[in-house]
């Protein structure tokens, strides 16, 4: 694709370029691009560790993360969203596909790098965890836990490290002297803020927030979410926000991807998802959010049964055993993730029913 600073004065070519750009779905270069990412774990049995099957935790994900956005990754527990988050950071091995990072003029497939080559990119991508109680090492003070990463990324003197960690703690609204205390001395909300400070200590560009507020009380959730949004603005961050709770993502996310059994079933702008959810699974998730407005009260769609095992996912559409619209075709053919347009905005969904309605 030609660079847009090539031409400015020549009318004709500018229009041609604009037309060309319109054909490309994402105008700016995405910071992260996943192509057909699969993460499978072998299931072994017996003394000889015979492989009897694979857990298809993540089973073919295509996704682009735009610089500066908040992308929500939503689904029930067991749908593979956490595994995908860890896969993006290369904390679990990716079985297939590519995770392409673009930034500072570099384009690399993180999945192909060995641990040494990965090091410079480790500081660009960071993660915040769900459980504030296991995310901090109980045997170390906060300074002790954060010191080694800083050392690795070039903060050589102890005094300098203390200054950096102090600044970080202040950035997450904690006092500087918290660094000499142990994790058990903090509340859940404070620990989560320390976890955020830790992720920030290498000045990343993208942070995966894995259920970052789910374990907290509602009032504290709001504080932490607000902190995350302030930090995003100040430091120009991009977030991938993993959660099972659609009521959290509404005010936070620019776009939302809904996952079911290792696949994306719907992907669109956050407002569109809440206003015009297409996929039956998203509808069911949305209907489960408690609504304060009585007039808006809709029928609650109850999902029957549990998420099926990812070792042996259902044939055809993976959602069909629980879908109230399921037909024969759903059991036979897997619906592809297709692009639709609603009010001129892209809306991706994977469902035969929608395909048919759109065709009519």
């Amino acid at each position, binding site marked *: 694709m030609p660079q847009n600073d090539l031409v400015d004065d020549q009318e004709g070519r500018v229009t041609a370029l604009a037309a060309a750009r319109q054909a490309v779905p994402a105008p700016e270069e995405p910071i992260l691009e996943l192509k057909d990412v699969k993460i499978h774990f072998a299931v072994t049995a017996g003394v000889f560790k015979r492989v009897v099957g694979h857990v298809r935790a993540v089973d073919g994900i295509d996704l682009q993360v735009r610089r500066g956005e908040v992308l929500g990754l939503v689904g029930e527990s067991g749908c593979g969203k956490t595994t995908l988050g860890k896969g993006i950071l290369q904390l679990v091995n990716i079985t297939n596909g590519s995770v392409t990072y673009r930034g500072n003029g570099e384009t690399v497939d993180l999945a192909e790098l060995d641990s040494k080559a990965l090091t410079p990119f480790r500081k660009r991508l960071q*993660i915040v*965890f769900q459980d504030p109680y296991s995310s901090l*090492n109980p045997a170390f003070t906060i300074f002790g836990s954060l010191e080694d990463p800083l050392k*690795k990324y070039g903060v050589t003197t102890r005094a300098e490290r203390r200054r950096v960690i102090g600044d970080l703690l202040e950035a997450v609204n904690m006092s500087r002297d918290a660094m000499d205390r142990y994790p*058990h*001395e903090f509340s859940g909300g404070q620990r989560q803020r320390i*976890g955020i400070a830790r992720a920030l200590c290498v000045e990343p560009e993208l942070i995966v927030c894995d259920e970052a507020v789910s374990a907290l009380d509602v009032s504290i959730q709001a504080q932490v979410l607000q902190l995350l949004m302030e930090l995003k603005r100040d430091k120009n961050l991009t977030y991938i926000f993993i959660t099972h709770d659609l009521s959290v993502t509404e005010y936070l996310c620019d776009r939302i991807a809904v996952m079911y059994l290792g696949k994306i079933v719907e992907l669109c702008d956050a407002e569109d998802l809440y206003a015009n959810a297409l996929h039956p699974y998203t509808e069911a998730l949305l209907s489960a959010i408690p609504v304060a407005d009585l007039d808006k009260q809709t029928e609650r769609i109850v999902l029957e049964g549990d998420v099926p095992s990812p070792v042996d996912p259902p044939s055809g559409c993976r959602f069909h055993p629980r879908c109230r619209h399921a037909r024969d075709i759903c059991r036979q053919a897997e619906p592809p993730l297709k692009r639709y347009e609603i009010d001129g905005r892209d809306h991706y969904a994977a469902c035969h029913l929608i395909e048919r309605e759109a065709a009519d």
Partner: protein
Amino acid sequence: MTATLPGPGTRTTARPRTRHDRQFDRIRAREEAGTFKAPVQGRFFSKFRSNKLAMIGLVVFSVIVLASICAPLLTTHDPQQINLRAMLQPPSADHWFGTDRTGRDVFARVLYGGQVSILVGLGSALMATIIGVLIGIYTAYVGGWVDALAMRISEILMAFPQIILVLMLVAILGQSLSNLVLIFTLTGWGGIYRMARARMLSLREEDYVQALRAFGLAPALIAYKHILPNALGPIMVNTTLSTAAFILQEAGLSFLGLGVPLSTPTWGNILNVAQDLRVLENNWWLWLPVGIVISLFVLSVNLIGDGLRDATDPSQQG
């Protein structure tokens, strides 16, 4: 104030305030003032101290260890001094535990023998711990074929009957104190290795470990510096318990004449004479006192180990 206290009793009627209410109020006042510190470090010691058996064990252990170390102060006899005019004497004011077949003072031999036996027990346990932990913590953290290899080696060593291994090594290396420690270390590291490995397998899934990995820190740094401190509790317990086991093994091997050379007094070597049925029947002072000392020592170490286990067990809070 009572009304704000939680609990079913407060909802119905105002019940009389008890000692616990006041205690609770105080704790809460401190909590609100921000001066409350959870006594996590203190809990370990207070739990250990309130365990009567463990305290008894600690006292017995200290007495025996101190007596062995201070042997020259407690007896004027030389444990190696042969006195053919005082053979097989029963206990007396001069010879508290009597004398053996070459007239050596048994009390002095028990004291000095304790030095060697405890050294062998503690030394082997420490060596086994160091090796087991060094291997177990790292291989379990990195996993894969490294882990599988370490597991197989430990299984092979554990599957060998120890006595055959000992016979082999004694035949190759000869009898000596350091060889005995080597043998015990070689046969004993497997147990601690397995425990360290099991601990690591659960600890490495913790989020803080994932966070460290996300920074790309070196595996050895993460495993040894950041995770190991969290696995030390149970490892410490295991070291204590294997000390006791090694002392028993030393006694057993020396009794069979395979341990420390007979000229060096150890608890096992002293017992060695009881192989003779006549000694067993007629000269009880040759084997009974030292037998009691060994039993007491092993028992005390086991009691301490149990106390440590209870004190470090997170499932037994309070």
